[in-house]
C-alpha cells in the first residue's frame, strides 16, 4: 500500500547518490581551488598555519602574468581566426560547391582531429625550430631565404589554427547542409541576386554556427596546455596555462598563487562560454545531421582544381608533413643532420629507434596504464552516464536539472585547473587514491563527463517514452522494462560513449601531467617526458606509434560505432 512511499525513498536515494558523485567529481575539486586561492597555503597539505589572504590575487598584478594574459588572448583569438578561415572555406567547398573529390575534402576537414595536440606540437618543433628544423634545412638547400621559427607566439597560433580547424568545419558544414536549398531558391524566386541571397538568407542562417564555433575554438585555445608548453615555454613565452604549471613546478612551488591564476583563467574561459551559450541559445548544430544532396552545387569552373589543390595543401601541411617528420625522426640513426640531402640519405636510416621504442618497458608499462585507465573510465562511465541520463530524461525526481548542469560544468573548467583541484582533493584524502591509476580514472571521468553524458543522453532521448510505458503496461516492472527495452535500445550510444572515453583518455595529457607518478605513467606522459629529456628519436618513434593507434581507434569508432570522435 505504501508502494509510492518506497518508490519515493528509492528515487531520492538514487538522486542523492548521483548528486554526491557529481559533487565529489566536479564541485569539490573546484571548490578546493577557490578555497586555496584565498589562503596562505594549500588546505590539508599538512601546513599548520593557514590564514586568509588576498595576496594571491594581488600577486596576479605582475608584469609576467599580465604578459601571459595578453599572450593567451593572442594565441586564442589569432588561432581561432585562422581555424575559422580554414574550417569555413573547407565547409563551404564541401557543402556547396562542385569541388572534385568531396569525400576527400570532408576527410581533410576532420582528419587533423585524429592527431593529438601533443604530437602536433612536438612534430612542428621538429619541423621548424632553429637551423636544424627539417623545413629550414630544406629551405636552405633549395636556396629559399626563408626560415621559420615555430617556437614563438606565431608558431603556437599557427599550430592552434591548423589543428582546431575541424571544429568550425563540422559546425559550419552541418549548418550549411541544413540550410534548405528551398530557402535559397525561394529567395531567388523572389528576386534576390546571388550575392544578396548569401548576405540576407544564407549568412543569417549560419551565423550562430559561425559565432558559436569561433568562441568554442577560442575557449579550447585559451585553456590549451600542450602546444604553448612545447612551443612557448622553452623560449620563455608563457600563456596563462603555462604560468599556472610553472607556479606549480618551480622550487619552492607557489600553489596558492597557481590557484588564483587558475581562477583567472577559468574566468576568461567562462566569459567566452557565456557568450557562446548566448549565441547558440539551445541550438546544437552538431547533433543535427544535414540532409545533404538536394542543394544545387555552385559551379567553380576552372577554380575547381585550384580549390582542390588548396585543400590538398592543407591536408599536406596539417597531416602529411608532420607524419613525414615523425618518420624521419624515428628512422634517423644519428641526430646530427648536415643538410637537406642527409634527410634522404638511406645510409643514415635504421629501425633501431623504432625497435627500441616498441620493446622498451616504458612503452609497455605506459600502454598498459593507458589501457587500464581508459577501460576502467569507460566501464564506470557507462554506468554513471546511463544512470544520469535516465534520471535526467525519464524521471520526475526533484533536482534532475541540477544533475545536468553539474554534468556539463567541466566544459567550462580548463583541464589544467581541474587537474590541480583533483590533485589537492585526493592527495591527502584518507582513501589510497593518489599515486594510483584510480586518480587518473577520476580525472578522466570528470573531464569527459560532458561528452559522455551528452552521447548517452541524446541516445536515450531518441527512444520514445512510450516504448518503456508499453512494457510496463504489458506487465513489466520498471526495472524489467529498463533491462529489456531501454537498455538494448541505447546500447549503441553507451558503447559509443565508452569508446569515446578510451580514445579521449589516451589523448589526455594536461590533467595527467599533474596527477601521474612514476608508476602510473600513461602514453602521453612518456612522450612528454622523452621530449623534456630531449630524446628526439624516442619522441618521434613513440609519437608515430601513438598517432597510428589513435588513428586506427578513431577510424574504427567512427566506422563501426558512429561515435562522434
Amino acid at each position: 500500500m505504501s508502494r509510492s512511499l518506497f518508490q519515493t525513498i528509492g528515487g531520492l536515494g538514487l538522486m542523492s547518490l548521483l548528486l554526491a558523485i557529481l559533487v565529489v567529481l566536479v564541485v569539490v575539486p573546484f571548490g578546493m581551488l577557490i578555497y586555496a586561492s584565498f589562503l596562505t597555503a594549500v588546505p590539508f597539505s599538512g601546513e599548520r598555519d593557514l590564514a586568509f589572504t588576498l595576496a594571491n590575487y594581488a600577486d596576479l598584478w605582475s608584469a609576467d602574468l599580465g604578459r601571459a594574459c595578453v599572450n593567451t588572448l593572442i594565441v586564442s583569438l589569432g588561432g581561432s581566426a585562422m581555424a575559422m578561415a580554414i574550417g569555413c572555406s573547407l565547409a563551404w567547398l564541401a557543402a556547396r560547391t562542385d569541388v572534385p573529390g568531396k569525400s576527400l575534402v570532408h576527410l581533410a576537414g576532420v582528419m587533423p582531429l585524429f592527431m593529438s595536440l601533443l604530437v602536433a606540437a612536438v612534430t612542428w618543433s621538429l619541423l621548424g625550430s632553429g637551423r636544424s628544423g627539417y623545413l629550414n634545412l630544406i629551405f636552405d638547400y633549395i636556396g629559399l631565404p626563408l626560415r621559420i621559427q615555430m617556437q614563438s607566439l606565431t608558431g603556437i597560433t599557427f599550430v592552434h589554427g591548423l589543428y582546431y580547424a575541424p571544429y568550425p568545419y563540422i559546425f559550419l558544414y552541418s549548418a550549411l547542409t541544413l540550410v534548405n536549398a528551398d530557402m535559397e531558391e525561394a529567395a531567388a524566386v523572389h528576386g534576390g541576386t546571388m550575392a544578396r541571397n548569401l548576405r540576407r538568407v544564407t549568412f543569417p542562417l549560419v551565423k550562430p554556427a559561425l559565432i558559436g564555433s569561433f568562441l568554442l575554438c577560442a575557449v579550447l585555445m585559451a585553456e590549451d596546455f600542450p602546444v604553448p608548453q612545447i612551443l612557448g615555454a622553452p623560449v620563455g613565452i608563457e600563456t596563462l596555462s603555462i604560468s599556472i604549471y610553472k607556479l606549480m613546478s618551480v622550487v619552492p612551488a607557489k600553489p596558492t598563487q597557481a590557484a588564483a591564476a587558475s581562477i583567472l583563467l577559468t574566468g576568461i574561459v567562462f566569459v567566452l562560454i557565456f557568450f557562446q551559450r548566448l549565441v547558440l541559445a539551445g541550438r546544437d548544430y552538431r547533433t543535427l545531421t544535414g540532409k545533404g544532396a538536394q542543394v544545387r552545387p555552385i559551379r567553380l569552373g576552372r577554380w575547381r582544381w585550384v580549390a582542390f589543390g588548396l585543400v590538398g595543401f592543407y591536408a599536406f601541411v596539417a597531416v602529411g608533413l608532420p607524419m613525414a617528420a615523425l618518420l624521419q625522426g624515428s628512422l634517423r640513426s644519428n641526430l646530427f643532420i648536415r643538410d637537406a640531402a642527409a634527410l634522404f640519405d638511406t645510409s643514415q636510416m635504421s629501425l633501431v629507434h623504432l625497435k627500441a621504442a616498441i620493446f622498451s618497458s616504458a612503452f609497455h608499462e605506459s600502454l598498459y596504464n593507458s589501457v587500464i585507465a581508459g577501460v576502467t573510465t569507460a566501464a564506470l562511465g557507462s554506468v554513471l552516464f546511463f544512470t544520469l541520463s535516465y534520471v535526467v530524461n525519464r524521471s520526475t525526481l526533484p533536482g534532475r536539472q541540477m544533475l545536468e548542469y553539474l554534468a556539463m560544468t567541466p566544459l567550462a573548467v580548463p583541464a589544467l585547473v581541474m587537474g590541480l583541484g583533483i590533485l589537492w582533493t585526493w592527495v591527502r584524502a584518507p582513501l589510497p587514491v593518489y599515486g594510483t591509476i584510480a586518480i587518473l580514472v577520476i580525472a578522466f571521468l570528470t573531464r569527459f563527463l560532458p561528452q559522455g553524458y551528452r552521447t548517452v543522453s541524446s541516445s536515450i532521448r531518441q527512444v520514445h517514452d512510450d516504448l518503456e510505458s508499453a512494457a510496463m503496461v504489458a506487465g513489466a516492472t520498471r526495472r524489467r522494462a529498463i533491462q529489456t527495452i531501454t537498455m538494448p535500445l541505447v546500447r549503441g550510444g553507451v558503447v559509443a560513449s565508452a569508446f569515446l572515453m578510451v580514445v579521449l583518455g589516451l589523448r589526455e595529457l594536461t590533467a595527467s601531467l599533474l596527477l601521474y607518478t612514476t608508476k602510473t605513467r600513461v602514453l602521453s606522459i612518456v612522450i612528454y617526458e622523452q621530449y623534456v629529456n630531449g630524446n628526439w628519436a624516442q619522441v618521434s618513434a613513440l609519437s608515430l606509434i601513438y598517432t597510428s593507434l589513435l588513428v586506427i581507434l578513431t577510424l574504427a569508432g567512427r566506422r563501426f560505432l558512429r561515435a562522434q570522435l
Partner: protein
Amino acid sequence: MSIQIAGLKKSYGDQRAVDGVDIEVADGGMLVLLGPSGCGKTTTMRCIAGLEEPHEGEIRIKGKPVFSRAYNINVAVHERRIGMVFQSYAIWPHMTVQENVAYPLDMMGTPRAEKEQRVREALSLVGLEGFGERGASYLSGGQMQRVALARSLVMRPSVLLFDEPLSNLDARLRDHLRVQLRELQTRFGITSVYVTHDQREALAIADEVAVMQKGKVVQRGDPVSIYRRPLSSSIADFLGYSNIFDAHAQGEGRVALDGHDTALATLDPLPTDGAFSVCVRPEDIHVLPEGAADGPAGERIAGEVTLVSFMGSFHQCRIRTPSGAVWEAHAPAVGRPIRLGERVQLILPPAAVLLAPRR
C-alpha cells in the same frame, strides 16, 4: 460497471491537466474521450493505466480500486493488467513481431506451448499471420498498429485503452483499421477507453462519448445525442457546427442574429436567461439559385458565393450575406453546380436551427 473514476485531479505545476473528472464505463462498452489537445483526455487515460499518479480521486477497475488517494492505494502499472495501444505504436524495434506480441505473456510466465498458441491467435486476429519472424522495425505504420493491438489482446486484458491510435495513419488506412478495431472490441466485449481529438472518429466508434474541455467532462452521451444536441456553443464548434452566431430572442419561436438583419425560426425553446448562440451544421442548409421558389420550408437568406470547394459527395460553399455574415453550407454534388460569385439563397429549416448557451 467496469471502470469507475471519481473526482480525478492531476496537475503539472500550476497547470490543472485533469480537474475533477467522473466517468463510468459499462462492461464491454467503448467510451471515447473527445476534446482538443491539452484538454486532459490523455492524462485521464494515463491515470487509468497507472502511468501517471493522480493527485486526487479514485479509480476502480472491475470494482477493485487501483488508485485511491483517500485509502492511499496505488496499484503499480504492471499489476493492473490493462492493454494499451499508443499513438506512437510503441513497437519495440529491437524485437521481432512475435517477441513483441509475446512480451506480456513472458512477463506473466506463461508456459511456452500456450504462449506460442496465444501469440499465433492474436496475430491472426489482426490479420498478421506469418509476420511473426519479421523484425518489428521493418513494418509499415498500419502493420505496427496491428502488432500493438495484438500485443494488447494477447494478455486478455480487463480493460483496453487506445491513445489516439489512428492519428499517425493515412486517411484510407485509418477508416479501415477503425472498423477492424471496433469489430474486435465488440466481438470480445472488452471494456475500452478511446482518446481522440477527431470528432468523426469519436462518433463512429463510441458507445458513449465524453467531451472534455480544460480538464473537465463537459458533456456525455451516446454519439447521436452528442451530435444532435451539443450543450454549448464551444462544443458545437468542436463537433463541426461551422455556422455559429451570437443571437437574441425575438419571441414566438424566432431569434435574431446579433449585428445582422437576419431572423430565424427555430423549434428549440427560447432561452429566458443567459447569452446564447445559434448553431447550424453546414449539411442542414439548402443552397438554391436566386429566385428559385421550390425547396423545403424554412427561412430564406440571400447571399453571394465566395468560395466553392468540391469534396466528392458534396460541394463545400461559403456564402456572404449583404450584412456581412458568412455562412458555410454543403450543396449536393449532383445537379447544377454552384458557381463562384453566383447569387444564391440559403434555406434554413427550423429544425436545423439549434440554440446553445454561449460558452
